[in-house]
């Protein structure tokens, strides 16, 4: 087990170097000159632009720029944004917000998705199952910005149950509405995933054995059916947690959440290399960690799964 973890962590190092190099190259190759954009509609002065390019190392060849950046990262310096703020500070401000949002959304997905999916699977073909399938189909087909705008308009503006946008503090309570929006599509998938997995497990021999042993229905469902149905769901949830951390740009924009998605989008538009690369790098690291945790979780769910040596 321990050896397995060490091996996985060591594997992360080349992945880390490879992604930063790749992302840095993509930002470098992005057409358009960020310095020119800094001047806006007013004309560009070549002498001033030259000075600024020098200041941000934009006049250096690609590999030099990359080495300057990666050298800084190893001493904890992630570079500075055009507004003079250390990128490390921006990371420290935005990631906690997005992580809070992602945790809330994930909790909702787990509670509602697995709950409804389990009931649907156990009562296959009944009214509850049919309606759960129809509702989940509706949420899967709706684009997320439609759900976001409708929820914002109905619950925040018309009913006044929540703030339409999230304040700077971005505390748990304020994040619930955007979290619900973020969770809707995934909840729909998890319902369907759990349902089919439960139906499949219910037909297995060991379930029949458990019933014939005289175990109570509740115990069979909890220990034998649900637990064995969760592996595909856990995989989905893990991938989804990664997606929630990096892909909430639309929802964060609509609810003005000062999180990762919104900040990264703005950095891409402004061509701020260090900001974009640092954000993406942290995202890659999060993916690696989440993936490792998922793999470890499999063993807890299914004792048949063992890790090498």
């Amino acid at each position: 087990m321990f050896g397995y973890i060490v091996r996985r962590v060591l594997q992360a190092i080349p992945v880390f170097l490879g992604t930063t190099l790749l992302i840095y190259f993509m930002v470098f190759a992005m057409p358009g000159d960020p310095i020119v954009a800094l001047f806006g509609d007013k004309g560009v002065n070549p002498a001033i632009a030259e000075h600024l390019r020098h200041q941000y190392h934009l006049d250096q060849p690609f590999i030099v720029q990359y080495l300057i950046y990666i050298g800084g990262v190893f001493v904890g310096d992630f570079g500075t944004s055009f507004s003079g703020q250390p990128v490390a500070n921006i990371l420290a401000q935005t990631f906690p917000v997005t992580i809070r949002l992602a945790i809330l959304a994930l909790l909702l997905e787990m509670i509602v998705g697995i709950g409804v999916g389990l009931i649907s699977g156990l009562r296959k073909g009944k009214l509850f199952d049919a309606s759960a399938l129809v509702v989940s189909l509706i949420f899967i087909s709706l684009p997320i910005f439609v759900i976001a705008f409708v929820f914002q308009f109905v619950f925040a503006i018309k009913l006044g149950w929540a703030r339409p946008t999230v304040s700077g503090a971005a505390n748990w309570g304020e994040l619930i509405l955007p979290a619900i929006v973020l969770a809707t599509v995934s909840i729909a998938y998890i319902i369907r995933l759990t349902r089919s997995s439960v139906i499949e497990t219910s037909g297995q021999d060991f379930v029949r054995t458990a019933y014939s042993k005289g175990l109570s229905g509740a115990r069979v469902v909890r220990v034998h059916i649900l637990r064995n149905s969760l592996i595909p769901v856990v995989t989905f949830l893990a991938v989804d947690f990664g997606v929630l951390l990096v892909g909430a740009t639309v929802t964060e924009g609509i609810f003005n959440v000062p999180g990762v998605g919104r900040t990264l989008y703005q950095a891409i538009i402004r061509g701020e290399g260090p900001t974009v690369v640092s954000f993406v790098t942290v995202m890659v690291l999060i993916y690696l960690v989440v993936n490792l945790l998922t793999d470890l979780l499999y063993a807890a769910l299914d004792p048949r799964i063992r890790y090498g040596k």
Partner: protein
Amino acid sequence: MRNVKIGAALVAVAATVALTLTGCAGGGNNNIVSTNGSEPQNPLITTNTNETGGGLILDSIYAGLEYYDAKGAPVNDMAESITSSDNITWDIKIKSGWKFTNGEAVTADSYINAWQYGALLDNAQLNSYYFDIIEGFSYEKSQPLTGLSKVSDTEFKVKLSAAQSDFPLRLGYSGFYPLPKAFFDDPKAFGENPIGNGPYMLAEKGAWKHNVDINLVKNPDYQGGRKPLNGGLDIVFYATLEAAYADLQADNLDVMAGIPDSALKTYKQDLGDRAVQQGAAVFQSFTIPARLPHFSGEEGNLRRQAISMSINRPELIQAIFNGTRQPAKDFTSPVIAGWSADIPGSDVTTFNAAKAKELWAKADAIAPWSGSFQIAYNADGGHQGWVDAITNQIKNTLSIDASGAPYPTFGEFRTAITDKTIATAFRTGWQADYPALSNFLEPIYQTGAGANDGQYSNADVDALFVKGNSAKSLDEANKYFQQAQEILFKELPAVPMWYGITDGGYSTKVSNVAFGWNSVPILYNVLKK
């Protein structure tokens, strides 16, 4: 079956918790007016801020020599007097007894040092072009301005390199604000926590919460004409206008500048008499450089006129913008003193299909038309709708192939324009830095000027600009600028499309909301209920 009930109960509990938690949000400080802004793109330094996000903050925390009233007329803020006998050497006297919020006195040196810093090439300040009219300015060498000299703590002289009749008008711009000594000690730290002398000041160190908001409170020591009627400002940075508008509708945002496109049809209904709509100092056009084939010399002039006359501006404005633009009748803006709709030649901005065809045929007689006509735009700025509509009208009127040419981002678009590789016409626009006709003309149409994207050059126009700048009065100056526009109408270095409109609104919690000439709400006058 018990499990089923537990599952259902869990769902119910989760929903209830969610709704109760969200219900107890909101609240806020009394007498603080909130308004929408955007995260400043640069550190908050007067000589390095050239965009509206940072500009709104700097205008609130600094007092310069002048400020502009609602109509755009300059009013003395710190200036006692600004005089000149020849429009070249200006004598500036400032009021005594003013202080920065750190207690340092604001003197002539605070101005001279700030301007020297802003102009110096090595400091690479985005607003350095503002000082290029002062003697000693150089884009080639890093050298101090020789035209600035101190007379006393409350008086200094500015010598310009050429006559400039509108010089006092420029002095309200944020690039000309004074800076305290603390700035020069550590510009980087200062840009994060600026110290000013204006109506407001930062609520505390670290009041600028990046990507979130900035908190300003009333500066009790401010002595100028912009004394705040409220206790402070909370300038909230929104990623989109839609998000800000949602807050406005829920009374969560007090004063909002701008209305999202999606709400243009409904906002007057939503807000009733709390909706604001008025003229703006914004001019929109598209530019057809003379270096494009078929667009040089007489042929080019005829073709530009034909294209301009084949566009039905009022119809487009109604269809695309719900009437939230004004058809352009000149190259400036109706909110500027001296504007006129009847400059000779301005009929090229009126739709006239027959005349357009006739002019196009005349140009074809010089050299027959070939290829297609395209207008480039940046796709990230909401320009596709009107560019497509314009090119459609051109196509229908002149029976030529015409279309829009999108660039993905503003950066790419501007790069193609400034390095002159762009092979099509392109959209152009100008928002005035200070309320003068000259500011809409000189920076764009003077030979070699900073924003002369179309590389337009006409010696007669240049001469009229020089005459206007050495005129004794603003009225006299404007006469020359109007004459210059007569020539511009013949050659159309930019095809005028429309003037911008300021739209916005305010919540039920505030009153006395008005917007200034530059589309920015006059925040110091807003009263919180």
